[in-house]
C-alpha cells in the first residue's frame, strides 16, 4: 500500500546570501495511513518547518511532498493543523469556532440538506467527544488553556481531514492537563482514524503518543534516527514507567543532546568555571 504522506529528499532554504539558512536538507520519510508519527529534536532542527511544509503553509525548495501520491499545492482542508496557541477566533463562541469551516465555500458546495444535518450532528458529537458540552456557548477567552486546545482540535476535526498536523499543541499546558490531553488525542486517533503528524519538544509525550518517533538534528535540519515505539497499540499512563519506555526515553534524550550542540555549551560553561577558579 502506498504511504499516505511521502516526503522525498525535501530541502528548505530560508533567505539568501549571508542570511542563507538551510532549515531542511534531504529529508525523506513515508507516513502510513492512520499512522501516528511524532517529531522531536533540538531547536533549529526544522521539525516545525517540516510540519508546515506538509500543511502547505511553507514551501519546500527541494524534493517532493506527496499526499496520496499527489504533490501538495498549498494548504487544504484535507490537512488540518492545530497550533500551540492564539488560533481560536475570539469573536466566535466555542460552538461557532468548531463550525467555522461550515462558513467556507468549499464546505458548502454541492451539499445536500441531509449532509448539512449530518454536519450539525457532527459538531455536537465533537463537542461531546472533547468534553466541551458545558462550554458550547462560552467565549474562547473564558476557557482555560487546555479547554481552548480541545476547541482547536474539535474545529480541526470538523471538516473530517484525513491528515491532522499538530505543532506543539500542548506546549503551553501544565503537566496534569497535558496527560489528560494525551489520552484524549489517542482516543480521537482511534475513533476518527486520521494520519497524525505531531511536533513536540517533550520526549515522554512523543513516545507515549506515537507509533514512530522521528528524531531530527539541526544545522542543517535533517532526520537523524527513527524509533519504533515498543509499546502495545492501546496506551495507558502506567506504561510510562515500564523499563522499555524509560530506556527509549533515555536513549532519545541522549541522542538529542548529542545532536544539539549543547555539549559545546557545556564545554564553554566548564571553561568559565575553570577561569573563575583561577
Amino acid at each position, binding site marked *: 500500500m502506498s504511504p499516505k504522506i511521502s516526503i522525498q529528499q525535501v530541502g528548505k532554504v530560508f533567505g539568501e546570501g549571508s542570511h542563507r539558512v538551510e532549515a531542511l536538507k534531504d529529508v525523506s520519510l513515508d507516513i502510513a495511513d492512520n499512522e501516528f508519527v511524532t517529531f522531536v529534536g533540538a531547536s533549529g532542527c526544522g521539525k516545525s518547518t517540516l510540519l508546515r511544509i506538509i500543511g502547505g503553509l511553507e514551501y519546500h525548495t527541494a524534493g517532493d511532498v506527496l499526499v496520496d501520491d499527489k504533490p501538495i499545492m498549498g494548504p487544504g482542508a484535507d490537512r488540518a*493543523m492545530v*497550533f500551540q496557541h492564539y488560533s481560536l477566533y475570539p469573536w466566535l463562541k466555542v460552538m461557532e469556532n468548531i463550525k467555522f469551516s461550515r462558513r467556507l465555500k468549499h464546505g458548502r458546495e454541492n451539499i445536500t440538506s441531509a449532509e448539512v444535518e449530518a454536519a450539525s450532528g457532527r459538531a455536537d458529537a465533537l463537542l461531546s467527544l472533547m468534553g466541551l458540552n458545558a462550554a458550547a456557548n462560552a467565549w474562547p477567552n473564558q476557557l482555560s488553556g487546555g479547554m481552548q486546545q480541545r476547541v482547536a482540535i474539535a474545529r480541526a476535526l470538523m471538516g473530517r481531514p484525513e491528515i491532522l498536523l499538530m505543532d506543539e499543541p500542548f506546549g503551553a499546558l501544565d503537566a496534569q492537563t497535558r496527560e489528560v490531553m494525551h489520552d484524549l488525542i489517542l482516543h480521537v486517533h482511534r475513533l476518527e482514524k486520521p494520519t497524525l503528524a505531531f511536533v513536540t519538544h517533550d520526549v515522554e509525550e512523543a513516545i507515549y503518543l506515537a507509533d514512530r518517533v522521528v528524531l531530527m538534528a539541526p544545522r542543517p535540519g535533517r532526520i537523524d534516527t527513527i524509533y519504533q515505539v515498543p509499546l502495545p497499540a492501546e496506551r495507558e499512563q502506567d506504561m510510562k514507567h515500564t523499563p522499555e519506555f524509560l530506556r527509549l526515553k533515555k536513549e532519545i534524550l541522549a541522542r538529542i543532546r548529542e545532536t544539539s550542540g549543547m555539549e559545546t555549551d557545556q564545554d564553554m560553561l566548564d571553561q568559565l568555571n575553570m577561569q573563575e577558579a583561577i
Partner: protein
Amino acid sequence: MPSRPGARPRRPGMWAIRGPLSRRQYWLFAALGLLAPLGLWWIMSSGAAVDKVFLPGPVDVFNRLVKWYVEDDLLSDMSISVYRVTTGFLFSALIALPLALMIGTFRPVQAVLEPLTDFIRYMPAVAFIPLVMLWVGIEESSKISIIFIGTFFQMVLMMAEDVRRVPLAQIEAAQTMGARKGETINLVIFQAAKPALLDTLRVTMGWAWTYLVVAELVAANSGLGYSILKAQRFLQTDKIFVGIMLIGLIGLVMDQLFRLAHRKAFPWLHLRS
C-alpha cells in the same frame, strides 16, 4: 528583614505600586481632578489681579454660553461643526479601511502606499488650506477636505498596523480548513482586527476635532471653530472659553459613544472587570 513573631503583611493600600482603588475612591479622585482646576480658575479670575479680558471667570463663561444659546443660535453653530467633523471623519474612515486591509495583508500594497503615506502625514494639514481653496473652492466641501487631510493619513497607518497585528495562527488555521484568499480576509483578518480598528477610529475622531478650528479658517460664517476665531477679533475671551470647552465636551461625548459601541459590539473583550 526579620520581624516580630506573629507579624503579618497588611493589605496593600492605594499607594502601593499598582495598588487597589475602590470604585468610590476612584470617583472621589476623579471629582478632585475635575473640580480642583475649576476652583483654581474661579479664585484666579475673581480677584482684581487679572483683567477679565485675559481670564473671564466661570460665571462670565456660563453667562456667555446662555447668551450664545438664546441670542446667537449656538445650536446651529454646534450642529454645523459636528456635521463637518463627522463627514470628514467618515470619508476618511471609509477610504482608510479597505486600504488598511490591503496594506496589512499584501506586502506589495504596503510597499507602494506606506512610505508615501508616511511622507504625506508629516505635511502640515494647515498648509494645505490655500491648495484646498484653489482645488475644492470655499464651499462646505473645503472644510470637510481639511478635516479629511488632517485625519486620513494617520488613520490609514494606524489601521494597517491593527490589521498586521492579527495573529498568524488565526490566519493559518483558516487556510488549513480550506479558506480561500477572500474568505481569509473577510472571515478572519477583518473580524479579528475589528476591535482594534474601532479603537483607532475613536482616537482619530479626537484628532478630527482638533482640525475643526483650522477647517473653519476657510471662509466659514458659522461653526464653533469659526465663532472662536471671530470672538478673538472682538476680544470676547469668554466666548473663546465657551467654544473651546464645548468642543472638548462634544469630543468627550463621542469618545464615550465609541466606548459604548465597543462594549456592545465586542462583548468577549468586556467580560467582568
